């Protein structure tokens, strides 16, 4: 977020609790966590995915809408 906007608007999502010394470090840690979460999801995605992928996808035919 730019300084310009930070002055004029308050961010309802963010409450500054304490000074975070190394923002980049925190961000990297968050990114790593996220990557791990996605990896977990990828591990279980095969159990969620419909079987017979090719037929399934090809069966999905609609009429045009609106």
């Amino acid at each position, binding site marked *: 977020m*730019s300084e*310009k906007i930070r002055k004029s*608007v308050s961010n*309802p999502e963010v409450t500054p609790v304490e000074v975070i010394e190394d923002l980049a470090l925190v961000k990297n840690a968050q990114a790593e966590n996220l990557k791990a979460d996605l990896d977990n999801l990828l591990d279980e995605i095969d159990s969620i995915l*419909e*079987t017979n992928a090719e037929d399934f996808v090809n069966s999905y035919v*609609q009429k045009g*809408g*609106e």
Partner: protein
Amino acid sequence: MQEFSRRIYGLENEYGIMCTLKGQRRLSPDEVARYLFRKVVTWGRSSNVFLPNGSRLYLDVGSHPEYATAECDSLLDVVAQDRAGEYILNDLRIAAEERLADEGIRGEIHIYKNNTDSAGNSYGCHENYLTSRTDDQSRLSDVVIPFLITRQIFCGAGKLLMTAKGPLFTIAQRAEHIWETSSSATTRSRPIINTRDEPHADAEHYRRLHVIVGDSNMSDYATFLKVGSMACVLRMFENPEIDFRDLTLESPVRAIREISHDITCKKKVKLKNGKEMSALDIQRIYLDKAISYSERFGFNEEETRALQMWEHCVTTIESDPLQLETEVDWVAKYHLVSRYSEKHDISLGDPRCHLIDLQYHDIDPARGIYYHLRSKNIMKSVCSEEQIVAATTQAPTTTRAHLRSQFITAAQLKKRDYTVDWVHLKINDQSQRTVLCKNPFKNVDERVQKLIDSL
């Protein structure tokens, strides 16, 4: 030109439907639609009804269930009401599957909140913004169209497209299906803005800007940003002190595809004035204008929140668009598809990758991939489970939808025959009493109260 202290928003989604057994198609979409709407017809004696939450639910052209949110004057309301539509349709799905089982038909029903099928048909997600009758419509188009073409970089839903050169991951589902900038057409030749003049309000004062270029979003962060950033642009447009640079694209229809085909978001497209700019450059221009507008005139609280999200997305895309996987649908889907293909050493053209592309949009929480991301808090959400569940039965209390909701609830309770649409509330008895509600901002009305009291 009129500036709105409050604005009415609405979202319409057409859903795709299918019934399969072990991957094979079991029923046609027409038949699925009939099963899905059995419960609706029993409740409302029609397959075209207004629900107690103020929304409209009906079967549209091509057997698509369509859910149109109630009139909302808050971004959070419109996001919650839109997601409530998914919950309502999921309930219909459960009831329809039970009926299928009762009749001895084996099969599962799938409902997708997306915009394309595997044969290249498209169906839409339409946005409505209340605007002023006095607006210069051609200037409005000039101002918003370059914005609408380029905003896909943060509100596209992503699509694995089969091209002559092989599979290509693209940003927007609708990009391939738009053929004009503005017209009154919908199915024949889809425009970015539909100019059909149906304000569903006092036509002397209002118009309804009907945007049909957008993708259906699963991410509610993206839905909030999509409607909220447009609300910021409209507010600037309505201020006579604000001038906009001419960013008219040389070929809007070509540009929307070129932008969709570039996940770096940085390739240049041609402007009419001969210059070249990327989608990101164009969004940065609108965003900077909104930031300085915010300093000079201020936006309301929700618009300000949308502005912050808009700035977060544009700034992140400037360094790396693929960092937006917790906010933006196309980025989340891109990571899923590309990492799945790496993990299994298959090409993006593999049916399993296409299945992920499709199943991301399944609205059954057990099957839908987006719903799995949401339940694991991998994707950011702007409204709570409680807000969504409440929105399935409660209309926004601050708009005309509140009146419609009260009327429908009372008439259902008293078992009276009634007819409603966006502006009319009518009792179908000998007196045929009708109340016309032309002001969408008005949530209290003596005439409606009298009508309800007389039931």
